[in-house]
């Protein structure tokens, strides 16, 4: 088995928790796993990228070009920055939430919607979800990441129970139920 997952988003979106859970699940399933994160500076709002690599043995902590199996984009345009990782067989999991880059917010540049549409067509499979709305329906915007994780879980060969256990181990005890509900929403999407 080889599973290379690239998770991209914007600082403050909570990608760290999601990627930690993926690592726990891979370990529990008996695989080798490495995760590499560049989180830059303390402030929010920058691009963040996490490489997760799962297999019998994993050497490099970063994914070679054109060989991501799954790209998870927590923000609508962020995957565009990493298109060099797309292979002929890459799945895209896309949260359609928009977070405007400063130059777009400032009116100096446009949000690259047409590029999103064209690069999206290069993926072999695309799952799109408005995770923020789904999370708000469940009562808390902060669990949007868990909805996205649910979709990812459906696309990879690990048991649902392992995911649920990893979530229970990682989230604050009081929020377990809510997080599991959000995960289910994604899983059954």
């Amino acid at each position: 088995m080889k599973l290379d997952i690239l998770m991209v988003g914007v600082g403050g979106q909570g990608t760290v928790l999601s990627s930690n859970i993926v690592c726990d699940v891979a370990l529990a399933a008996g695989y080798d796993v490495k995760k590499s994160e560049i989180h830059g500076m303390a402030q929010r709002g920058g691009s963040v990228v996490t490489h997760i690599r799962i297999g019998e043995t994993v050497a490099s902590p970063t994914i070679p070009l054109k060989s991501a199996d799954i790209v998870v984009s927590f923000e609508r345009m962020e995957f565009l920055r990493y298109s060099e990782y797309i292979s002929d067989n890459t799945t895209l999991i896309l949260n359609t939430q928009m977070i405007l880059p400063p130059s777009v917010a400032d009116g100096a540049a446009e949000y690259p919607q047409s590029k999103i549409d064209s690069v999206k067509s290069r993926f072999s499979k695309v799952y799109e979800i408005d995770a923020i709305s789904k999370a708000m329906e469940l009562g808390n915007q902060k669990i949007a990441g868990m909805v996205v994780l649910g979709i990812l879980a459906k696309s990879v060969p690990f048991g649902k129970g392992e995911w649920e256990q990893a979530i229970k181990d990682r989230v604050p005890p009081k929020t377990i139920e809510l997080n599991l509900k959000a995960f289910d929403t994604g899983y059954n999407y």
Partner: protein
Amino acid sequence: MKKVLSGNEAFARAAYEAGVGVVSSYPGTPSTEITENVSHYKEIYTEWATNEKVGLEVAIGASLGGKRSMSCMKHVGLNVAADPLMTLSYTGVNAGLVVIVADDPNMYSSQNEQDSRHFARFGKVPMFEPCDSQEAKQFTKDGFSLSEEYCTPVLVRSTTRISHVQTIVELEDRVEAPKLAPENNIPKWVMIPANARKRHRFVENRLELLTELAEGGKYNKIAMRDKKIGVVCSGVAYTYVREAMPEASTLKLDLAWPLPMKKIAQFAASVDKLYVVEELDKFYETEIKAQGIKVETLERDVCGELSVDAVRELFGVPPVEADVDTTLPFRPPNMCPGCSHRGIFYAISRLKLFVTGDIGCYTLGLLPPLQAINTTVCMGASIGMAHGLDKATDDMSKKSVAVIGDSTFLHTGINSLVNTVYNQGHSTVIILDNTITGMTGHQPNAGSGKDIHGNPMPKIDFAAICKAVGVKEENIRVIDPFDIVNAMEVLKEETSKPEPSVIITNKPCIFADRSVIEEPYFIHEDKCSGCRVCTKLGCPAIAWDASKRVALIDENLCTGCHLCIKVCKFGAIEQRSK
């Protein structure tokens, strides 16, 4: 038990398992989380030191006192701690002492890309180089025993791709280190020339013994595969080589210093072609070539980091055609909404002052629209440079200021301020006291009134320090950085004085005190004239609606800092009521 740990968590775990008693460090990406994680082990006394030199000296004292100790820093931190390190090499240790130094190839968050391996050779001390979290833990633990066995400080080199990478680690229990009495041994610990001459001889002998260790069977293993290609490599570069060229034979250097030259020669003789794949400087390559061993030439860039693809390319695999879109709108780092640095920087930029800058979140004042940083060299440099600028020119002191954060002022700013006062400078220094070390992820410092665990501590009084070193009381001005009009007034007054002045800002980082966060503001579309003055503040919460030609506030981002209402002349900005 197995767990997925980051390199930094693994380094901390090593300290725990090795029975370490004292850890003193200064934060710096990518090393910061090592000490933060150590602080969660209640068995270990952990502190944030005022700078890396102090941190290492505390560790030396703890070792002298009989406890295993550790100090962790980023690569440039070791420049600051180099002075004690160089002579600590001579004294050696009592209880084991490990220094972890984290390099930052590609400079994800650093001002230079220096290669710390040179420090091992320079200081004649051993240096480990782990390739993943398991080795990070194992080598650090080994480092403590080795430190005691050979009477030497031990360096462990990390890089961003070790510190911030998570891999599987086998956890072990803590074993209390053997109890050692505090050492009182004048010939060993008092480095006057007569003693130091003998210790230098000791250092040279120790290096020979360490070379024997490096040549032995425990470290630096040769793995013979295809004999056509042999690669000497270490750290994360080893993992790239294994993936890029699984057939190649390897000599993995666990110890970056001293090098096992006999083993390397033997490896060279057993393969057709010998290559060296290392990140940053040609450190191994230069040393190996100096021994007369033939090393094949690779067109490797010494700038930036390696990767599987980069290694493949070095060995002639045509590069993957990757279409990187460079026209996408960037997400540059920016000061947070509500950051206490924004108002004062707006004032500085309005007055068009020349700014000798320093390192911290305020360095982001460089970016448009504020554009109010003209220099950044190293921590503490702002004050000394402002003084040099003053002495070299007729009137620059009237048109310039030094800006320095609270943590940076305590790190290496105080001595420069003493220098300015002593040498009768005229410069104006702004201490941006946001009560925390923001840039590295909000660590408390001596000005925070809190220790690493959040317990109350004595709080350093910046105004009192300035007064004590001789800045006149009337030239020390404590101001609210959000009050732009007053800030401009004070800046004009202080820069015009032919004496040293210090302006101290008094509002916290939004992460230091969450109680400053208030209800968000919003903009009345009908009252907004479209003048765009609020967008010149560079607050990430303020956007511009090009079609309606009005400004708007993202209420999810706004922290209610009141800054923008001070620049809006049309009363268009209003706070939401609770």
